[in-house]
């Protein structure tokens, strides 16, 4: 009885020489990505906290997130996301030449 049936997985890569500390490497990536997003995407955190069930703790966290969002914006960290989002909204609103802007 064969218990292990071979199958192809997208995460199977051609084997190379083993590279050290895979777990540490992966964890560092996740940590750096999270910190980067915390600094540059504070608005998403703020919006997420605003959506949570209202309560004293939620209100505290919301105030904190709002301050953090304002701070990251004031030092320019939140700017790239804001600009990108504005550009995306402009792309959403764009129409072909023959279409009136309010058509749809």
């Amino acid at each position: 009885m064969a218990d292990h049936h071979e199958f192809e997985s997208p995460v199977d890569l051609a084997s190379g020489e083993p590279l050290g500390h895979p777990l540490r490497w992966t964890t560092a990536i996740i940590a750096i990505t999270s910190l980067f997003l915390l600094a540059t995407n504070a608005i998403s955190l703020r919006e997420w906290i605003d959506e949570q069930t209202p309560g004293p703790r939620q209100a505290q966290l919301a105030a904190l997130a709002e301050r953090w969002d304002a701070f990251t914006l004031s030092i320019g960290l939140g700017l790239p996301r804001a600009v990108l989002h504005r550009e995306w909204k402009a792309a959403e609103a764009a129409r072909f030449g023959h279409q009136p802007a309010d058509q749809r």
Partner: protein
Amino acid sequence: MLFPTLTFGLFFLCVYVLVWTVGSRDNEWRKILLLIASWIFYGAWDWRFVALLIGSALINWSLARAIASSGSTDDEHERDEDAPSGEKTQAYRRKMLVALGVAANLLILGFFKYYDFFLGEVAPLLTDVGFGRDLPLLQVVLPVGISFFTFQGMSYMIDVYRGRVRPASLLDITLLMSFFPHLVAGPIVRAAHLVPQFQKVPKLDRGMAAMALLLIIWGLFKKAVIASELATQFVDPVFFDPSAYGSGDLIFAAYGYAVQIYCDFSAYSDMAIGLAALLGYRFPRNFDQPYRAVSLQDFWRRWHISLSSWLRDYLYIGLGGNRGGILYICRNLMITMLLGGIWHGAKWTFLIWGGLHGLVLSLERIWREVKPWRWSLPRPIGLLITFHIVVLGWIFFRADSFDGALDYLSGIARWTGKATMITPLGLGLVLIGLAMHLGPPRLMPALAIRLRRVPAPVVGLLAGVAILLIDAMRFEGVAPFIYYQF
């Protein structure tokens, strides 16, 4: 709890840390942690469904054990006239047990998915023949992902019966069916794929982690940007009221839905595979550039591979598969595809979708058998024809009703040419969705091979920039994945 949300992101961070710290000391504890996490994930929809999940796992685990303890794992004794009567009895007992298990699984699935539909269809028939009654419609709430975990449990039990896998522990089987990355929308991961991985301490290597991160980010882009934008801005409004739009819009929305459903469903699979890989587990491939297919048979080797291979192994082959004459093969194809259609839900439109695929698969089969000429269709022509048959099927699949699908098709046939919905962004997204099928098939693994050598801070920043870009483009809010309803 939807994958592309901050709630899930925080949940996954906690699971990742716990599994690789507390769980790393003992594999059994790791599995218990994963099981609890999976129940929390599933319970976020409705805690009652967790009880159903546990109950389903218990049924399949106990029946598989009973089957395994009933002697030989093949049917030799049953077929062998000279076999001792005790062994014949055991073989009969095993057959009865597996039949009971299949019936129990189908009953659970049937009750939740088809009970109200069945009564709704039967009521007018009873009235027509003079037996009109108020039938007890229950407004049954469909547990998310029930089709997926039921198929997984059922295939485990059948595999034990066929002698393909050994019976596993209750913990392994419950985790197999509950494991949160695949729980609600697949891929359908079989016991033979996952249980042996559960029985060993999982290992992570840099290549696996790099590929996992790429899959998660790519999945986020496909779901949060392409699928959500196309759904909310173009596809949903047109399918809601096809009569309000011209043929140009209807055709565009049909192509849009083909891209949306691919980006939606393959995104879930990509993220599921990536999340499982970050926890050290491998899942099978579920999509392989499906709109690149040059025949419908080819399409089903590329689309929802875990379901098509499940239907092939447990239904099509069970019906006789490719044995017998061409008529038997076509019958088996039709039955398989009709049941595959109804697996998606209790709607006539799904049945017609399955029927269309079954019919075309049968025609392809007949063509191969009796081909009067030696030539085959040039590949680009085959690709175009296959794609448009698939798109035609998607119109039935997406339409709210059979009449809605017919309205949609008659709107296209009227050919007014009017197209007010197409915007530069919408057109761009549809083209990107189609272009994904023309790229090199193994582009992402090649990228991951390079990425695994890059220092973690650089990869972390790159991943952060990619997610920031996606978040800036995403549509406000995240719609549930299409396949959650199945």
